[in-house]
């Protein structure tokens, strides 16, 4: 059975994806990754209810209990301003996810239209856009981001921009490769025959058909973006205090960490577990989606 189109002329891949999803979940590690991510999202949403000390999570200091080691009241201890680390980490999940989602949206907003244009029109425009994208990809991305924030001044907004600049070309490439094959399909031709404008064809007919790979890619990128952003935060180039950013917390804890090891250790562990979960999910998804590997997967 080939891929079918539904009434709106979109390719019906629902069943295909369901099969893919089943394959993804066959691997216990992938399921574990997915579970952690769902837990993380829930934590971010419910932060004020889950955090034992929500005010401290938001940045309120409590100087009576400075640098308390982990105990029943503060399972992960407190930092130099007496704030409960667990609450900070829970609120940090919010910031990390929000920031990562913001980056993904910026990247999609820049990369996808450019990819659409490049793939749809081809020729000179295609050449210019893709060469520019290649040029950006030729730089070491973290270094480029550091240089950008360092020159523009450290704050969260600049960090988001700085991470997006080296990232969008991946989406342009991805979308372009899809568009190049999609634009030869019959539904595009018939849309053109009834007189649809280029813009309409691009956004109403072609774009909906490349959404799935974009979404998959965006999910997989989340982990790296979080790692990236927390690295910037660690350098003091991202989120600014008193907001609870995991990278910033690791860096704050550095001053004390030989004695008060818990501050940096737990906040760094939060970064690690999150990125680890996203990478596990990503590996699983890639295996399930790559037909060459899928065969190997089904056999066992």
């Amino acid at each position, binding site marked *: 059975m080939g891929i079918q189109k539904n009434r709106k002329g979109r390719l019906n891949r629902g069943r295909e994806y369901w099969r893919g999803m089943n394959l993804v979940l066959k691997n216990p590690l992938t399921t574990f990754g997915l579970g952690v991510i769902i837990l993380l999202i829930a934590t971010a949403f419910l932060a004020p209810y889950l955090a034992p000390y929500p005010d401290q999570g938001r940045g309120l200091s409590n100087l009576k209990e400075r640098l308390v080691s982990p105990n029943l009241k503060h399972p992960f201890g407190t930092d130099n301003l007496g704030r409960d680390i667990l609450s900070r980490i829970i609120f940090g999940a919010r910031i990390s996810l929000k920031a990562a989602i913001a980056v993904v949206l910026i990247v999609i907003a820049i990369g996808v239209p450019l990819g659409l244009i490049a793939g749809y029109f081809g020729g000179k425009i295609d050449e210019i856009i893709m060469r520019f994208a290649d040029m*950006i990809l030729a730089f070491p991305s973290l*270094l480029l981001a550091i240089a950008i924030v360092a020159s523009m001044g450290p704050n969260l907004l600049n960090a988001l921009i700085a991470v997006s600049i080296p990232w969008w070309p991946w989406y342009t490439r991805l979308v372009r490769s899809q568009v190049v094959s999609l634009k030869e399909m019959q539904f595009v031709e018939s849309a053109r025959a009834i007189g649809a404008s280029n813009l309409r064809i691009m956004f109403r007919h072609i774009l909906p058909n490349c959404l799935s790979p974009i979404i998959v890619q965006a999910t997989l990128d989340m982990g790296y973006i979080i790692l990236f952003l927390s690295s910037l935060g660690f*350098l003091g180039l991202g989120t600014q205090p008193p907001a609870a950013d995991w990278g910033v917390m690791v860096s704050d804890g*550095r001053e004390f960490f030989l004695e008060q090891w818990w501050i940096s250790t737990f906040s760094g*562990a939060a970064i*690690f577990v999150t990125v680890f979960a996203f990478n596990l999910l990503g590996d699983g998804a890639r295996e399930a989606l790559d037909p060459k590997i899928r065969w190997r997967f089904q056999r066992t």
Partner: protein
Amino acid sequence: MVRYVIRRLMWLVLVLLGLCAITFILSRIVPSDPAACYLGPRPRPEQVEKVRVQLGFDKPLYIQFAYYLRDLSHGDLGESLRTHRPVLQGIWEHLPASLELMIIGIFIALLVGIPLGVISAKKENTAVDHLSRLFSVANVSMPAFWLAMIFQIVFFRWLEILPIMGRIDTVVSLVSPVKDITGFYTLDTLITGNWTALRSALSHLVLPSLSLAAYSTGLIARMTRSTMLEVLREDYITTARAIGVSEGEILFIQALRNALGPTLTTAGLCFAYMLTGTFFVEIIFSWPGLGTYTTNAIFLNDYPVIMGVTILMAMFYVAVNLLVDLLLAVADPRIRLG
């Protein structure tokens, strides 16, 4: 081949021009005044004005950019706004420390990553394979600065067997100082036969290079595993088994030789990536390398240093990529560059 290299080099020039333009524009839209930076705290207005003219900050942006490019073409990266020393000199002094770390790091990554990938492929879908894959994913997911701190707590604070920071023990450096020949402490001490210093330098290298190697180890193991899986399915491997070649030879000689290409490409990328990775490791271990030099500049808003380091690193990055591609083409007749 020659034409290919020329084309790639021209591309490199274009890429660097773009990078210069981006960092230049960004560094000039910041509200901070570079002339005031140059003078240090609390300058007088007429002083600032004088320096602004002297350094060319009064000119339009595109003329400043043209000046910068002109100097750059002579190998002049300008001078630091804070120390008033040439940027190139600063980079040159800090480079060996970083390179030493990176070279040892990439060796560790190759020595651990390749065997891990090979064994993982051999034992596909067994517990060994799952464990080693988990290990590689974990390595890729770990923030280097966090791993470095964990190492410090475990090996310095708890086990007390390794030093926490610097390139060499202060006492050792006073009693038997390292003669500066290459800037690589391990090499310099080897050449001069300074064994106490060598031992101290090596023990200082362990933790930083391990932290730096983690990410690359994961990537290399992953890459080796997936290419080995493909190679092991080829007919010539079956033939080799049939004629009774030992399994060890099949794995590590016959198969690995053909699987090495993508692995080495990955290693090249990793090595180039380490230039940025070393920033984080150097901060944690107070390692006097490029990372420390640059992060200091970032906090002081010393943009000639930031730009100079960015440009040189990008050059290095692109050059390493080119070199890896060329080496592969030389080593593997199946690859044709065009």
